[in-house]
């Protein structure tokens, strides 16, 4: 499974790419594989203030719906609206075109994991 070393993770399978104070958030390669074909995404509104640990989005596969938790606190500054018509991008490119939303960060979760620690979590659930 693909777990890039330059990202941070939550054990609930979200990833966080931090560039300056801007965080890009999505679900991991492991998560998209476990979910199967993604067919629907519900994203937060731009401008919404989110808290780390808050359920802010929903990703649904054919079988099931999953809550997505924000790994950071801050303001949502962008959402990946292309997912409305092409939710399958989450399966194809979870770390690229399949990202979910971006946040201007004021604080990060104390529960962030590095790639090695997340790999252990994923392998224990595989």
């Amino acid at each position: 499974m693909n777990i890039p070393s330059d990202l941070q993770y939550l054990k609930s399978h979200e990833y966080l790419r931090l560039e300056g104070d801007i965080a890009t958030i999505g679900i991991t390669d492991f998560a998209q594989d476990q979910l199967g074909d993604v067919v629907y995404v519900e994203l937060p509104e731009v401008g919404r203030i989110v808290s780390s640990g808050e359920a802010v989005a929903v990703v649904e596969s054919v079988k099931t719906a999953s809550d997505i938790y924000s790994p950071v606190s801050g303001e949502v500054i962008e959402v990946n609206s292309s997912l409305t018509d092409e939710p399958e991008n989450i399966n194809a490119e979870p770390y690229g075109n399949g990202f979910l939303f971006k946040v201007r960060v004021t604080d990060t979760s104390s529960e962030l994991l590095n790639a090695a620690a997340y790999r252990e979590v994923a392998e224990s659930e595989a």
Partner: protein
Amino acid sequence: MTTLKQTALHGTHLEYNARMVEFGGWDMPVQYAGIIAEHLAVRTRAGIFDVSHMGEFIVSGKQALEFLQYACANDAAKLKTGKAHYSILLNQHGGIVDDIYVYRLELNAYMIVVNASNIEKDWMHLSEIATKYDVTLENRSDDNALIAAQGPKTAELLEPVTSADLQSYRKNSVFPSKLCGIDVLMARTGYTGEDGFEIFCAPREAAGLWKELHKLGFAMCGLGARDTLRLEAGFPLYGHEWNDESNILETPFTWVSKEYKDFIGRDAMLAKPKTKMLRGIRMIGRGIPREHMTVKLEGQTIGETTSGTQSPSLKQGIALAYLEKEIELGTRVHLEIRGTDVEAEVCEPVFISRSSPGQ
């Protein structure tokens, strides 16, 4: 922790990297390549499913027919040897014990195929009824593997590897045959809304047969696609649309209930108040229906969904729901999805045109 049961194909599923899940006490494949790809393979070509977890009972003897007539809602007297039909077992309160398929194998011998999660319940229920008849009832669930080959290309793909003239066997036929050199029992039945055959064989032959069928071009499919396929076709699933308190007369399956004959639960069923009806729901707004969602009309609750998914064929959310019986087809309603009311429409509980080969 209880150990999950495994079918004869369990090792084969692992070998082909299927994703396994618990289903009714069994460790079963939910998907191979992906639910959507498998679903579309069955709608456009052909796929195979391991449904060996389902139960098989054999009832035989002089009063086999009389036994079935009392135990089942449908009229087994209409079955000629080599034919099968859908039927329902009722309890004494008129509720539903299980939905089943009955196959007439010989003059006085029938096979009953039951849902995996209901094998023990059905066995107790039928064994008790059997004490009053001159019949032998056998639980052969562990002696059979069952592979469902489904999709419009099924007959074409099987034709070169079977001894049977498949064209001569119409829908709901059951017949012994050789398939890929293996002795099997084939039935032109299924649970996908497509043409196809369900293939019963000895457990030790199952893995070899599965691989041969895959080589012929059948896509390997899991229970995930089986569920989306049956839902598009509007077929009920026990534990969702049916349970011990359901009433056949509140569904489109009233035709199964042949009330001109006496069967267990008939009078109780007829006496039950009929307040709701099993309907289809198509989403108009964005969102995917799931089971146990509230259906509303002008803010008032009018029912609840029993199954729901995103239809891979229609690329639209679809559901089955019990609604107040007065609600008409075409009514605009709302489905409560995570606290938000999303627009939907009431429709017939069939979302695709079902194939009826040779009917």
